[in-house]
C-alpha cells in the first residue's frame, strides 16, 4: 500500500530547489490566467498542494499567485474551489486580505475557519453565517445552506461565546422548525425517470420508515424517501448537532452537583415557576405514551425558544426510540438505528438534567427500552448511555437499578472484555461517574476482578483509564485481594486467551502444538484454579492455595505478547495501589500487606523482567510502610527475620532482601518501639551475622549471580547499628571485620568479582569498625534520636532566638 513511489514523491516535494520552485510558480500562474482550465491546471494545483503540505515549515507563495488562488475560490468548477481552498489553508493569509463569507461556498468557509486568528474573526464569521440563514429564500434546493450548521458547530466547540443571545434565539427557532416541522413528503428523486414524468405524475408521496411502511409522524433521520427536500436535509444536520447544542447552551448552571437531588428539584421548580402557564400544559403530558408524542404539542407555543428546543428534542428522541424497534432492510440502517438510540438516550439524559420534570415522562420509555435490549449483548453499547440515565435520574424516579448494574459490572466485563470500543466507553463511564458510583452502587468496588479483565486483555489501550480509576477501587476491606489480583494480572491475561481459544477451537482436536495450558484449562480437576481468576466479584477469598500450581500450568504463556504487554503495566498500577492504600490503611492492614509482599515475592508468574520489576516496587513500598509505622518492624520481627535469615533470598530476591535488612537495622530499636528487647536485637544480630558469613565465605550456588556489593554493605551497616544498641555485640562485629580484612588481602574472593568493589566493602567495614570503637558516639550516629532526624529548630529554645531575629530583620529591612 505504501510504496517507494509515494516516499520518493514526498522527498522530492520537500527537497525541491528554490529556483525550480519559482519556475513552477510562474508556470502555474500562467496556467491560471488562461481562460480555460484543463487537466494540466488541476494536476499542477495538486502538485502545489503536495509541495506545500509535505513540509511542516510554511512556504509563502508569490502575492500574485496567491491573489489568483483567492479568486478561484468562487470558481464554478468545484475542483478548483477544493484545490484553492486546500492550497491556501497550507499557507499564510495575505496581509490585508479581506475574505467574506460567500454563502454558497463551503470551501471558502473552511478556509475562513482555519485562518481565524482570534475570537473576533470567529464572531464575525458567525454573524455572517446567521445573517445568511435569516435572509435565505426557499429557492432552488441545493445543499448550500446545509454547511452552515456544521460551521456553527465547529465554532461552538472552540468558542461558544461567539454566538450572541440573539443568534442563539434565532438558531433555536430554526432548529425547532427543522427538527419538528420538516416536510413529510418525499422530495424530487434523482431517478424518477420513465414514461410518465410530466407534472401530473408528481403527486406528493409520503416519506417511509426503514421497514418500508408509510410514515405516520414527523420526519426524522430514520425516515427514507426517493429524494429529499432542503428542510429534510436540515433536519438531518440539525439532529446531528443537537446534542452538542444542548450541552453548550442548556447545561445546568455550575455549582449544582448532579448527586444533590434536593437542589435539582428546587432548580426544576424555579424553572417551571418562571413560566407559570406551562405548568398546566405539563399536567396534560403526564399521561402521554411513547407514540403519537406530537399530538399534544399545541401548548408549546407559550414556551421560550430554549424550552421549545428542549421540548422538540424530547419528542424527536422518543420518536427515534420507537422507530429503532422497526426491522430495517439494510445493514447500514440497522447500525444507524443503534447510533440513533445512543444519541437519543444521551439527549434525553441531557434534557432531563436541565428540566427534572421531564424525568417522569421519560423514564417509562427508557425503562421499556432497557427491557427490550438487556438480553442482547450486541446492544451493549446502547445500554451504557441507559446506565448513565439510570445513574443520573434513577434515584429521583425511585426506580430499582439493580438489573442495570448487574449488566454493567457483572456481564459486560466478563463477556465483552475483548471489544475495544465497549471497553473504552465503559471505562469512560466509570471514570466520569466514579464519585457517584461510590455513593450509590456498592458493587462497584467489589467488581474489580471483573473490570481488570479489560486491562488484562488489552493493556496498552486501557492502562491510562485504570491509572485514573484504580484509586477509587481501593477500599480497606478488599485491599489485600486487590493486591493479589494485580500481581496475578498476567495469569488473568493468559486465562482469557485460553478461554477464547477453548471456545473457538474444537475439543477433540489434540493440541499438537504443545499447548499444555489449553489442556489444563479444559481439565475439570484444574478448573477451579482458572475459575477463581475469572470470578466476577471480590469477596470469595484473597487468593487460592494452589497458586504455584497455576503458575506452573501457565508457564508457557510467558512469551505470549498479550501476557507480556499486561505484565508491563502491573508495576505502575502497584505504585498507584500503594500510594492510595497508604493513605487509608490502619496498622492491621499495613501488617497484612507487608506479609503479602514477602510471601508473593517468590510466588509470581515467571516472566523474565516481571519478577525483578515487582521486587523493585515491593522494596520501595516496604520501606515507605516501615517509615510510616516503625513499630511494624518490631511487631513482625519474626516474619522479617525468617525472610532475612534465608540465605537463598540473597540470590533470588536481592532487592527485597537488601531493603528488609536495612529496615531491620534502622527500625529495630527501643526508640521506635518500646517493646524491642535486648533479646530481640541479639537474635536479629545473630541471624544477619550468619547470613553474612555464609555469603562471604563461599561462591554463590550454581546459576545464581554474585550478590551486589550493596547487599554486603547493607548487612554490615545493619549489624553495626544493632551492635550500637547492645554493646555486647560489638566484639563480634570486630571479629567479622578482621576476618573480612584478611580474606580480602588475598586479592580476589569467590563472592565478589570486582576488585574495586571489594576495596569499597572493606573500607566501609573499617569505617564502621572505627565508629564502633567509641560506642557512645556510634549510638548517636547509627541510631539518632527523633529530634535529630526530624529537626524542628524553631521549637528549640536555644536555636529559635537567632532564627526569629533573622526573620524579623529581613522583614523590617527595606531593600
Amino acid at each position, binding site marked *: *500500500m*505504501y*510504496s517507494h513511489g*509515494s516516499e520518493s*514523491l*514526498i522527498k522530492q516535494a520537500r527537497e525541491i530547489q528554490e529556483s525550480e520552485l519559482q519556475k513552477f510558480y510562474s508556470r502555474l500562474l500562467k496556467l491560471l490566467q488562461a481562460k480555460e482550465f484543463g487537466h494540466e491546471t488541476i494536476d499542477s*494545483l*495538486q502538485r502545489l498542494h*503536495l509541495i506545500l*503540505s509535505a513540509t*511542516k515549515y*510554511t512556504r509563502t507563495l508569490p502575492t500574485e499567485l496567491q491573489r489568483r488562488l483567492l479568486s478561484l475560490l468562487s470558481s464554478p468548477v468545484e*475542483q478548483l474551489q*477544493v484545490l484553492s481552498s*486546500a492550497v491556501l489553508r497550507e499557507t*499564510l*493569509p495575505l496581509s490585508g486580505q479581506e475574505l467574506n463569507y460567500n454563502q454558497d461556498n*463551503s*470551501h471558502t468557509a473552511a478556509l475562513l475557519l*482555519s*485562518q*481565524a*486568528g*482570534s*475570537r473576533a*474573526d*470567529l464572531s464575525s464569521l458567525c454573524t455572517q453565517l446567521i445573517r445568511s440563514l435569516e435572509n435565505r429564500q426557499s429557492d432552488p434546493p441545493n445543499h448550500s445552506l*446545509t*454547511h452552515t450548521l*456544521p460551521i456553527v458547530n*465547529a*465554532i461552538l*466547540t472552540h*468558542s461558544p461565546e461567539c454566538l450572541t443571545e440573539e443568534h442563539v434565539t434565532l438558531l433555536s427557532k430554526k432548529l425547532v422548525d427543522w427538527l419538528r416541522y420538516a416536510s413529510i413528503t418525499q422530495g424530487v428523486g*434523482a431517478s424518477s425517470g420513465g414514461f410518465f414524468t410530466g407534472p401530473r405524475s408528481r403527486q406528493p408521496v409520503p416519506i417511509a420508515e*426503514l421497514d418500508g411502511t408509510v410514515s405516520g409522524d414527523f420526519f426524522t*433521520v430514520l425516515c*427514507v*424517501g426517493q429524494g*429529499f427536500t432542503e428542510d429534510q436535509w436540515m433536519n*438531518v*444536520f440539525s439532529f*446531528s448537532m443537537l446534542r452538542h447544542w444542548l450541552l453548550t447552551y442548556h447545561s445546568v448552571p455550575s455549582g449544582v452537583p448532579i448527586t444533590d437531588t434536593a437542589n435539582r428539584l428546587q432548580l426544576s421548580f424555579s424553572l417551571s415557576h418562571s413560566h407559570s402557564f406551562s405548568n398546566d400544559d405539563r399536567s396534560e403530558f403526564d399521561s402521554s405514551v411513547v407514540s403519537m408524542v406530537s399530538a399534544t404539542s399545541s401548548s408549546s407555543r407559550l414556551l421560550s425558544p430554549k424550552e421549545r428546543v428542549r421540548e422538540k428534542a424530547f419528542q424527536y428522541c422518543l420518536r427515534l426510540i420507537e422507530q429503532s424497534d422497526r426491522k430495517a432492510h439494510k445493514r*447500514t*440502517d440497522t*447500525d*444507524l438505528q*443503534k*447510533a440513533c438510540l*445512543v*444519541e437519543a438516550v444521551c439527549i434525553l439524559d441531557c434534557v432531563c438534567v436541565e428540566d427534572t420534570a421531564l424525568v417522569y415522562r421519560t423514564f417509562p420509555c427508557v425503562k421499556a427500552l432497557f427491557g427490550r435490549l438487556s438480553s442482547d449483548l450486541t446492544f451493549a*453499547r446502547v445500554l451504557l448511555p441507559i446506565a448513565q440515565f439510570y445513574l443520573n435520574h434513577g434515584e429521583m424516579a425511585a426506580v430499582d437499578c439493580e438489573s442495570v448494574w448487574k449488566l454493567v459490572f457483572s456481564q459486560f466485563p466478563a463477556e465483552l472484555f475483548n471489544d*475495544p*470500543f465497549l471497553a*473504552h466507553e465503559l471505562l469512560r463511564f466509570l471514570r466520569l461517574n466514579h464519585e457517584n458510583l461510590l455513593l450509590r452502587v456498592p458493587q462497584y468496588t467489589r467488581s474489580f476482578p471483573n473490570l481488570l479483565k479489560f486491562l488484562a486483555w*488489552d493493556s*496498552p*489501550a486501557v492502562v*491510562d483509564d485504570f491509572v485514573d480509576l484504580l484509586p477509587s477501587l481501593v477500599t480497606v476491606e478488599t485491599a489485600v485481594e486487590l493486591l493479589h489480583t494485580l500481581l496475578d494480572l498476567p495469569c488473568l491475561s493468559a486465562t482469557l486467551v485460553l478461554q477464547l481459544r477453548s471456545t473457538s477451537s474444537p475439543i477433540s482436536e489434540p493440541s499438537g502444538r504443545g499447548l499444555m495450558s489449553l489442556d489444563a484449562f479444559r481439565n475439570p480437576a484444574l478448573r477451579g484454579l482458572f475459575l477463581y481468576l475469572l470470578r466476577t466479584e471480590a469477596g470469595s477469598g484473597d487468593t487460592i492455595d494452589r497458586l504455584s500450581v497455576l503458575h506452573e500450568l501457565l508457564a508457557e504463556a510467558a512469551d505470549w*505478547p498479550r501476557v507480556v504487554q499486561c505484565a508491563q503495566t502491573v508495576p505502575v498500577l502497584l505504585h498507584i495501589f500503594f500510594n492510595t492504600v497508604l493513605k487509608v490503611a490502619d496498622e492491621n492492614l499495613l501488617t497484612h500487606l507487608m506479609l503479602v509482599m514477602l510471601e508473593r515475592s517468590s510466588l509470581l508468574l515467571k516472566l523474565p523482567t516481571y519478577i525483578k520489576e515487582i521486587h523493585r516496587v515491593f522494596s520501595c513500598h516496604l520501606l515507605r510502610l516501615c517509615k510510616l509505622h516503625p513499630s511494624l518492624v518490631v511487631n513482625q520481627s519474626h516474619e522479617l527475620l525468617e525472610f532475612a535469615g534465608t540465605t537463598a533470598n540473597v540470590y533470588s530476591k536481592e532487592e527485597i532482601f537488601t531493603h528488609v535488612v536495612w529496615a531491620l537495622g534502622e527500625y529495630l530499636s527501643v526508640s521506635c518501639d518500646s517493646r524491642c528487647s535486648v533479646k530481640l536485637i541479639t537474635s536479629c544480630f545473630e541471624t544477619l551475622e550468619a547470613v553474612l558469613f555464609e555469603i562471604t565465605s563461599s561462591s554463590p550456588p550454581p546459576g545464581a549471580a554474585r550478590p551486589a556489593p550493596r547487599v554486603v554493605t547493607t548487612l554490615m551497616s545493619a549489624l553495626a547499628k544493632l551492635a550500637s544498641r547492645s554493646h555486647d555485640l560489638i566484639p563480634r562485629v570486630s571479629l567479622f571485620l578482621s576476618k573480612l580484612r584478611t580474606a580480602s588481602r588475598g586479592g580476589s574472593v569467590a563472592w565478589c568479582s570486582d576488585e574495586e568493589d571489594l576495596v569499597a566493602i572493606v573500607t566501609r567495614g573499617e569505617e564502621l569498625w572505627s565508629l564502633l570503637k567509641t560506642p557512645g558516639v556510634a549510638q548517636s550516629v547509627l541510631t539518632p534520636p527523633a529530634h535529630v532526624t526530624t529537626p524542628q529548630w524553631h521549637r528549640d529554645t536555644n536555636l529559635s532566638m537567632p532564627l526569629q531575629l533573622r526573620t524579623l530583620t529581613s522583614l523590617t529591612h527595606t531593600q
Partner: protein
Amino acid sequence: MVRCFLIHTVCPVSALSSAESRILYSRVFGPDEAALTEQQRGLSAEQRRLLQREKVAVVARQVKSAVYLCREASGRALLEAVPGEEALALQDANSGVVRLRAGEPFSDETSALWLGVQSLGFTLVCEPHENLLLAEGTLCGLTRHCLEHLHMLGQGSEVLLRSNRIDALLSRLLPHGQLLFLNHRFAQSLEKEVTAYMAK
C-alpha cells in the same frame, strides 16, 4: 465534532525512526485552537501552523504504536489484499480507540478512533462526548471510499496526487468535521455526488 482526519503509515518507513509515522493526508477541522487559547496567543500564524502539524504528528505516532501493539497481541498474520479486494481488506482491518489526555496533544481530552488497513492507518480524532458508534461507521465509510476511489491497495501514489478527492469526500460525508446521521438513502445521494466528482 471531529477534530481531524488522518491517513498515515503504520508500518516501518526506512527514512524515519521506528516510532515516527509518515502522514499522507491530514485535515484538521475548525479553527486552530492555538489561536484561541490564552497561553498560545502570542504565536505568529506560521508558528501556529507548525504547532498544529506537530500535534497531528503526535496523534499519528500514538496510533501507530497502538496499531503495532494490537497486531502483536492478536498474533494474526497480515494478509496482503490486492486491488479489487477492498471489502476484504476492510473486514480484515484492526480497529480500536486511543484515549488522548488533555494537553496530549490537543488542549482538551480527545479520543482517536483508528482503522489499520495493512500498512496504513485511518484515524478520526473526536471529542470525548461524541457518538462513537456513529464515528466508527463514518470512519469505515470514509476508509472504504478512500481505498476504492484512490486505488490504495495498489502501488500507486494517488493518495498524494489526488488529495482533492479526499477533500471533496470529506466535504460531503464529514462537512467541517460534523458527523452525520445518514440513513442509506441520504448516504446514497451524497455518494452519488462524490462519484460524480471523482469521475471528472
